[in-house]
């Protein structure tokens, strides 16, 4: 044992042992029974969804969610199949219908397994999109917030946007002209910028390009305010109904309409982190902005994002189920929990399992995400610990 190690040992005798952040958070988290059970259900759901994907995918799946057996309509859960009527290859895997069948004789167990994968991917991809946008927007607003946008930035942005809009409304000629104008504008301002900074040449005509307008922070945060004014579910419904129906559109649209909370969190965290010593030290060491943001600041700002992501997944699963319920979800042969429930609602008095099985599944999964997220919030937030 070297001298130094002994010194440290002596010095730290009366102090509490060093505890890493993770194990400290885990210590708090594991005391919370609700959150723990949430985590357990979350892991179970994850495995069910992944196995559901492998069991129901492909040409000859083990569990076929789309197999129609007209003789086996609306059977109760745990009924066995009719040996005379069902062809051998159409028989359910376990010899019984675990969750019963629907009005077309499709196996609800297979449909639920397929739907679990849909719910999982919709939740994760939608929240992934919203977190990515939120981190980028919040990071810019928090880190470069003081930067005043020049007139040329706004001008280029406006021209390119207009060109995109014209392209979308099938005015290709106008779109092309606008696109060229935007490019010319961009090149001019970049060229002028280089001349100005390198040579010191000043062309008064172009000086208006560098008029300072609003700050980047207020530009982004006003946009957040605008997005928050939309009635979210109604907006999602509108866009989904107008776009061609497929699962990717749902994920993207839910993601694009739910990034505002993350942006606000990240911005608030960045505003306080930016002033701290370790960021100043990193800047003094000449580390690039990119790695300051991604290596040093984001790991310190990630806790509230993780919490809102977990709760966001719950919200996305509920939104997808609501859309499927209204008939705008994933197109028909594909099963989701929302459209199993929506198909079954016509038989609510004759075949209540068609409503209750998907309904309770959605409830349990969403509840587990919410409980897990709240437990995480408690474990990661030092302010809540004492209470």
């Amino acid at each position: 044992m070297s001298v130094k190690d002994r010194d440290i040992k002596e010095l730290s005798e009366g102090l509490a042992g060093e505890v890493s952040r993770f194990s400290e958070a885990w210590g708090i988290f594991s005391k919370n029974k609700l959150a723990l059970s949430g985590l357990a259900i979350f892991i179970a759901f994850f495995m069910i969804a992944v196995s559901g994907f492998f069991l129901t995918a492909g040409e000859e799946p083990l569990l076929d969610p789309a197999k129609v057996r007209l003789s086996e309509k609306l059977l109760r859960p745990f009924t066995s199949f009719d040996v005379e009527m069902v062809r051998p290859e159409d028989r359910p895997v376990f010899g019984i219908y675990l969750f019963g069948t629907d009005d077309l004789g499709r196996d609800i167990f297979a449909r639920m397994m397929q739907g679990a994968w849909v719910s999982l991917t919709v939740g994760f991809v939608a929240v992934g999109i919203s977190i990515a946008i939120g981190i980028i927007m919040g990071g810019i607003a928090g880190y470069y917030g003081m930067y005043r946008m020049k007139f040329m930035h706004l001008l280029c942005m406006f021209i390119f946007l207009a060109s995109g809009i014209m392209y979308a409304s099938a005015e290709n000629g106008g779109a092309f002209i606008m696109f060229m104008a935007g490019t010319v504008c961009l090149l001019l301002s970049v060229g002028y910028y280089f001349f100005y900074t390198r040579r010191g040449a000043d062309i008064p005509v172009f000086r208006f390009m560098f008029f300072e307008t609003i700050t980047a922070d207020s530009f982004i945060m006003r946009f957040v305010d605008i997005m928050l004014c939309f009635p979210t579910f109604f907006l999602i419904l509108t866009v989904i109904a107008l776009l061609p129906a497929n699962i990717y559109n749902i994920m993207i649209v839910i993601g694009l309409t739910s990034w505002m909370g993350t942006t606000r969190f990240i911005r608030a965290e960045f505003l306080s982190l930016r002033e701290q010593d370790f960021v100043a030290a990193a800047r003094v060491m000449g580390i690039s902005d990119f790695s300051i943001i991604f290596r040093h600041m984001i790991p310190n700002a990630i806790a509230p994002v993780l919490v809102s992501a977990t709760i966001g997944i719950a919200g996305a699963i509920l939104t997808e189920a609501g859309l499927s319920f209204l008939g705008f979800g994933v197109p028909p042969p594909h099963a989701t929990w929302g459209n199993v429930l929506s198909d079954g609602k016509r038989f609510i008095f004759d075949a209540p399992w068609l409503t209750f099985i998907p309904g309770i599944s959605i409830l349990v999964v969403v509840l587990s995400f919410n409980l897990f997220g709240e437990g995480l919030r408690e474990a990661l937030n030092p302010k809540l610990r004492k209470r």
Partner: protein
Amino acid sequence: MFSFAVRSFFQKLITLFFISVISFLVVYLAPGEPSQIDPMNPKFTVEDLERFRQEFNLDKPLHMQYYLYYKNLFTGQLKSWKDNQPVLGKIVERFINSLWLFIVGTVITWCLSFPVGIQAAINRGSVFDRSTTFFAYVLISIPSFFFAYMLIIFVVKNFNVPVIGMQTFGMSGAGAFSQVMDRMWHLVLPSVLGALGGIALLSRYVRAQMLEVIHQDYIRTAKAKGLSSDKVYYKHAFRNALLPFVTMFGLILPGLIGGSVIIESIFAWPGMGRMGYEAILARDYPIILTINFIAAVLVLAGTFISDVLYMVVDPRIRL
């Protein structure tokens, strides 16, 4: 105060302008055109299509369509594409129907969540606290359409009353009392369902706010003086915990439209949400856009009211 009001008003006006542009673009740039809603219909000739497009300004460039749409909206001449009725008249009628649900739901929310939240905060860690916490999460997590069907089965089986629609078919000739009772029955389920999420969130918020307050020094002083616990909690603590909720009166306004789509569709309640849903199905752009616009106006008005209320109740705040 006055300068704040004026400044905020103009800021909100600018926000509203951008919202109008974005929602217009979202709806109008979506693939497909409302004139093609029924392409297989043999009665729909090419000339009809042309006339349709001309009638609804669909042949004009986009910025002209935008201008004409909002000009018609503000002069009250905007017509629904589906049945050629004035949009504002249709919306006002549906708005009043939704208002009923909204008022009953809000009253239920506020009457339930305050007692629950306060009790949970006072008896922190008790069985009551833990069970209300758990139920709050259940209420947030339950899909409203699923819960709606469970309630419908329960009510129809146990009380034998119809709950779909706004009133029972053929009731118009009945006496005033039975009409009122009938309306009440129809009102209860959708408004309770609309209120559930609000109850869960608000009671959690009340609990957190009360917990914040009852650890303050002046509460300890009040207890030390020997005041009864009712007086300490309801007179000293609650009044101070109430502050953020006064401002929430403004923020509940947007609830009038958001989130009512599913509930109103299930209960066949002729309100705004269901009208929006039907308009989306029929690609009735004027109605979709107008509902969006009204929703945005409600959000902005709500935040404005809550800002002003905040200043009124808390004299320390100067905006």
